């Protein structure tokens, strides 16, 4: 009997161990999926919170608020915007109208306005964020051209009904295209205080659809990269105005510039973060035609550092491989003696992109966003010696030599294209 009582008592102990003080029913919580931060007007910060809709008790799609006080019509995202001294006080202030407790554990995006990111206040906001348990470092960090509040209002879900999944997939496109960086709070914060390199964030914007010119008014670009745009500038129209394209560059604690999609790909290649992307280049033998390739990294970039001279000398070798997607001219680039022609053309295209980006970061931004300082640090034995070297001051004057190595591995569904036919029915 005593043993049974003891066992029962022990089992009863499991109940409080489940944390009765901290118990929260999921429908008592307002889950925030995106946090927007702008400079405030009546207080230091303008905070926008995008809250996920939840099914109510009857199973119908409902609102997180009680008594209809928090309702908003249709499938529009639920957004609260207010001026406040800080994110945390802001959440309390927002509770004056939203009955649920805000929870940031499922927030996928934190969006700063460009105005805030370029100001002294940005440093204060980032430093103040990292301590709170609900701020997960795996959320992605965006800088929007314009207001974060406007971006959040346009941050809608078009396909499917799952906003957190949409937010996550939005930033996952980094691995699909390389035109946005994989910039989460973990990496950003590490680089924010880094002696090795400077931080970057995803560049976001709203597209007004005015860049898609009417017939007769457009002008065909000389570049074939397709990524020579910043967020909000793509020549497109249709449904969502929200756009992620390019990189926000920071020097120390403030944003100092932007990179377009093409530059962002080159950046990812040097950083060793490039996963894959479609490229279009001019046909080296027939420049009026285009060649499309799907490109992957073959190996991590090789970085060699020489500190013997007055200025640091850095050699970066980018190793890529790819598959042929389309050859408009029907040239037989699949042949072993022709393949190098196309490979060298692509190498030269990428090298020029990479060199131009390095020059931009050295001269214009004076910011090592490539992480080259990490390789330089390997030449030092102690932290004191490394910090005395002052890498961030040395970077703009460093000699950076690059090399691109590219090989075509596969040629798609065609191994030998037959020639095109002229109007007269003769093979070209």
């Amino acid at each position, binding site marked *: 009997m005593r043993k049974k009582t003891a066992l029962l008592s022990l089992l009863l102990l499991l109940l409080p161990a489940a944390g009765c003080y*901290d118990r929260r029913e999921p429908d008592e919580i307002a889950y925030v999926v995106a946090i927007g931060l702008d400079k405030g007007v009546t207080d230091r910060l303008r905070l926008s919170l995008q809250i996920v809709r939840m099914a109510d008790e009857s199973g119908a799609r409902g609102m997180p608020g009680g008594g209809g006080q928090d309702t908003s019509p249709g499938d529009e995202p639920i957004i609260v915007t207010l001026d406040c001294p800080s994110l945390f006080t802001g959440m309390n202030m927002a509770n004056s109208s939203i009955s649920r407790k805000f929870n940031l554990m499922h927030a996928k995006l934190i969006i700063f306005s460009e105005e805030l990111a370029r100001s002294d206040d940005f440093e204060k906001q980032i430093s103040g964020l990292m301590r709170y348990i609900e701020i997960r470092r795996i959320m992605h960090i965006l800088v929007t051209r314009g207001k974060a509040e406007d971006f959040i209002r346009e941050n809608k879900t078009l396909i499917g009904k799952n906003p957190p999944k949409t937010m996550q997939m939005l930033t996952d496109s980094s691995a699909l295209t390389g035109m946005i960086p994989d910039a989460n709070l973990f990496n950003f914060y590490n680089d924010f205080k880094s002696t090795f390199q400077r931080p970057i964030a995803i560049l976001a914007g709203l597209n007004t659809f005015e860049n898609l010119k009417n017939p007769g008014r457009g002008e065909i670009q000389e570049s074939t990269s397709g990524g020579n745009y910043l967020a909000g500038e793509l020549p497109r129209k249709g449904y969502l105005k929200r756009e992620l394209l390019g990189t926000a560059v920071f020097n120390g604690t403030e944003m100092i510039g932007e990179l377009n999609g093409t530059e962002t790909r080159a950046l990812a290649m040097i950083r060793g973060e490039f996963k894959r992307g479609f490229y279009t280049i001019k046909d080296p033998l027939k420049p009026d035609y285009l060649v499309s390739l799907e490109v992957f990294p073959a190996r991590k970039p090789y970085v060699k550092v020489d500190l013997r001279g007055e200025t640091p000398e850095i050699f970066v070798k980018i190793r890529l491989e790819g598959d042929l997607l389309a050859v408009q001219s029907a040239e037989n680039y699949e042949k072993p003696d022709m393949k190098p022609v196309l490979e060298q053309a692509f190498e030269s295209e990428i090298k020029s992109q990479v060199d131009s980006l390095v020059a931009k970061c050295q001269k214009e931004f004076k910011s090592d966003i490539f992480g080259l300082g990490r390789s330089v640090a*390997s030449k*030092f*034995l102690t*932290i004191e010696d490394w910090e005395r070297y002052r890498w961030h001051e040395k970077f703009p004057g460093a000699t950076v030599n690059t090399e691109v190595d590219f090989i075509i591995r596969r040629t798609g569904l065609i191994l030998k294209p037959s020639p095109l036919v002229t109007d007269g029915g003769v093979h070209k």
Partner: protein
Amino acid sequence: MLREGKIGVFEAISVITFMSATKVLYSSSRALVEASGTSGWLTTIVSGVTALAGFYFIILLMSRFPGQELVSVFETVFGRFAGIIFSLLMSVFFLLNSAMFAREFIEAVKVYAYPLSPPSFLLVIFILAIITVLYFGFECVARTAALFAWPMLAGLAVIVILAVPLYEMSNLYPVLGHGPACIIKTGLLRSSVYGDALALAVVINSLQGSEHFKKSGVTAIILSTAIIATGFLIYNLSFPYYIASESTIPLYALTRSIEYGRFFQRFEAIFLFVWSISGILASAINLYFALSTYSKVFRIDDHRALILPQTVIIFSVSLIPLDISSIAYEHVNHIRQYGSAIYFGIPLLALLVAVIRGIRGEQAGA
């Protein structure tokens, strides 16, 4: 005479490893990262080697007094009065360790998991678990430790493997952190992390002879060093040195940063399991050694009579620090830095006195 039963080598290794290696899961590992920068893993290896040297002196001491446990050795070497003082000092130190494990655990739980629960409520649950383990005696403590040894190792191994995408070799540069002098100095100062092997000398009669004592102690120190060094290595690999010293619980911060796509995130659940089991066991084991030492000093036959009073003391002592800052920066830091004086200093002193005065145990002299 206190009847503690018999345990095997694996149980003994598990007991000491839980006492030592659990420290890497708490805030003191942050202090080591701060002190040593990128070379935390090297520094803790220096501590491990130093502890092995210290344990060698404990082996020498115990081999002079076969059949006697440490409390009895102290009484033989220093005399009854001074022996009691030294033994009680050890008992208090074990008690303090137990209380700090409890408080650190509660503070960390408040920060990371249960922010709204009152500390005293969490502490009561924690202490009830300790009482349950201790009630059934040393054999139960040792077997529980042995039972959880493999799941705990597996849990840590899972964290090490899952965190692979976060590893960045360049985070280990500059490789010597704040320099070789700092590595050696900090390593020597913090050798107390592995000093728990001394506890085996308190229960040496529960082991199957002096060979088992040596084997268990040395293996436990090496295993704990391997676990803690791996913990620091993966942490240093994942966080650059200037960020690494920020986190309240470094390894928790690491597990929170692991993600594999949309579906596999929030791996801290694994860490919570490893963390809570290790914390409770480490605290319970330390408290048992405090009880055992105390019982042997005052010739108490049944340790169970002391469990309740001692846990009340643990409860009170663990609530003395005002906040997590004073625990991390002062109490735990002082225990780590000056603990070697208790763990290795007193046995070394006893060995010196025994050698100088030519004192040997009865069986050794026979």
